[in-house]
């Protein structure tokens, strides 16, 4: 063994040492990430209840899913979380980051206050918001509404409001992260651009539109992709805030991940759950590929 080691060149020794260290994450990824991922593709073609015999049924799980009208509602819910959640959170985050960058007094403290929700356990936060949304006489939001003389709102008990009521704490929780990335992006723009523009007599609005926003394009693409994937995978908030953890009322708040969870762990239909997972995987893959394509084009 030592003979073998001594006969190696320094370059070979370095390579072996490097691979030894790399082996740890590799083994982790292959056994904990990749293997179960491929296993899911296989399980998606089975009828299996976790315990009994596995029965190969080809693409029947997929056929059943596509024929299920609840699936289409749930898919639409999932898209709504992303379609509304991403632009709203990015817009708020950008406005806050833009103005936060202008101030110096209390900058760090305010930034920290925006960041704390990002560090908070989603379930704990969702429970607090669940209580905020309660009807009178205990719900905080409804108490405020009644103080202002406005009629109380059903929030989580409404088919139309519940999804947005659940989205709100998710947006709020992600805000801190987006603000920090935006501030970093704004600060990375060379100061000389702004100075040149000011000398040329450009106004604040013009600078924002012509310099800041275009220069932030990579930042925005990155944030869009990260938060799109985040919203497409929303689960904790819905599970905690919807009555009976079922994504109600009438499935109006149920996202794909909750549906997967219900199939797998309430009904023990592992095949159906895996098929749904594969579908979600495909959606996320497309979103990521579009990101790569956009980034490449930018360079």
């Amino acid at each position: 063994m030592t003979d073998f080691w001594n006969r190696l060149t320094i370059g070979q020794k370095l390579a072996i040492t490097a691979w030894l260290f790399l082996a740890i994450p590799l083994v982790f990824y292959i056994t904990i990430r990749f293997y179960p991922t491929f296993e899911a593709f296989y399980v998606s073609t089975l009828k299996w209840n976790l315990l009994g015999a596995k029965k190969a049924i080809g693409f029947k799980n997929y056929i059943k899913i596509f024929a299920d009208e609840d699936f289409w509602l749930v898919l639409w819910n999932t898209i709504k979380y992303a379609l509304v959640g991403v632009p709203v959170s990015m817009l708020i985050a950008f406005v806050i980051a833009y103005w936060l960058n202008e101030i110096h007094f209390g900058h760090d403290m305010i930034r920290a206050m925006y960041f704390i929700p990002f560090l908070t356990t989603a379930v704990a936060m969702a429970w607090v918001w669940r209580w905020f949304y309660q009807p009178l006489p205990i719900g905080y939001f409804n108490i405020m509404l009644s103080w202002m003389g406005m009629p109380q709102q059903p929030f989580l008990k409404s088919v139309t409001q519940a999804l947005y009521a659940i989205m709100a704490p998710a947006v709020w929780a992600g805000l801190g992260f987006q603000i920090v990335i935006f501030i970093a992006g704004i600060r990375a723009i060379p100061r000389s651009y702004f100075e040149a523009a000011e000398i040329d007599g450009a106004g604040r609005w013009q600078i924002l539109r012509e310099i800041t926003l275009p220069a932030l394009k990579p930042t925005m693409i990155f944030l869009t992709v990260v938060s799109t994937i985040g919203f497409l995978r929303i689960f904790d908030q819905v599970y905690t805030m919807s009555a009976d953890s079922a994504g109600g009322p009438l499935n109006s708040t149920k996202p794909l991940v909750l549906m997967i969870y219900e199939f797998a762990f309430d009904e023990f239909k592992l095949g159906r759950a895996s098929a749904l997972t594969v579908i979600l995987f495909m959606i996320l893959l497309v979103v990521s590929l579009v990101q790569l394509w956009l980034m490449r084009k930018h360079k």
Partner: protein
Amino acid sequence: MKKWLKSAFALAIGGTSLLWSGMVQAVEIEYWQYTYASRVEAIDKLIQNFEAANPGVTVKHTHFPYADYRKKVAIAVSAGDGPDVVQLYYGWLNDYREGGLIQPLSSSAFPHATIERDFFPMVGTMKVEGEYWGLPTAVRSLALFWNKDMFAEAGLSGPPETLDEMVDYAKKLTKKDADGNYLSVGFAVDTDGQDHHWWREVLIRLYGGQPYSEDGKKVNYTTDAGAKALKYVTDFEAVHKVGANGFMNRGQDAFAAGKAGMVLDGSFRISKFVKQDGLNFAISELPGHNGNRYNFSSYWVNGISSKAEGEKKAAAEKFLQYLTSDEAMQLWLDTVGELPAKPAVALVDANKTHPLYGPFIRGLSYANATAFVSEKPQRQSLIDAYDMVVLQGADPAAALKKVAKAEQEVFDEFFDN
């Protein structure tokens, strides 16, 4: 000298083998249930009694939150790990049986004739394919909890005896502010709680229907009786405006806070309400209709997991025999507040006339247990039908048609196998 050595040697061997046999005899079995303070306390007491009577057998008691209960049992048992004796809700029996999580009870340790002679008839739903798969220590039924102070304030002297009286009383008990917001509700509707059982097994039958076909394979509530029953439940919120589903989060919370005149619940809730300061409540049997009364009963059973074999299985059977003994049942009633599963223990005068347990025990004599295929999706039927009527203004009959279709699919998929 030699002789002495010989006998010492023999003694040593004998002692070791005695120790060895003692070790072999000490069987440890595992018992699993979900965390609920009074249930945990009761099982701890029962284990203590059992271990004292059966030296050589120890029982390890594990409990964890209800939310993870089913998953953990399924995953642990399928990995050859986990409990030997396990507690499960009777509505999960088919899932557990199909999943191979539990094994049938041997007829030598649990003779069928004895079970059928001693237990309440509803335990019959535990007999599938000619075998019993689990036995309860206790059974549950529903009753009406009512707030005595609120009743007195509204000028009502006693609980409602009929469905019509119940609506009438609820109206008198409801308080609203100037804007029409509830300060307290007359009846705390709670579709996440026990109300789906009430609708399915009590109201539908009171209106002359039957929730499922005789063989339990067909949904049978898309009838006039089903619609009337659904209308009765939803009218509290939609028409009479004397209650709101989920008011103060859950019906039991509203009642505990003294903000609900009436709520439906099981006897296991008594311990919660008794501990509530300033809550002055009484319990009565569920209101009837046209001179009839119905009730819903349910129970948790103890089964032997498929993992238990050999001496562990023998010990598990012994423990299960003890858990279903008269002594255990009375202890369970006194500690947890759930009703003994044998008429001989339940229907003694001291229990029947008990001010708190009495109404539940009397209700058992006219109770039905639903033969669930899978409880969660079946419960969703009422939750969804209720929301369609109350939130979307759907017609009760139309709402039932929709949820019946989904529930029938659950049945078909199950009986298809």
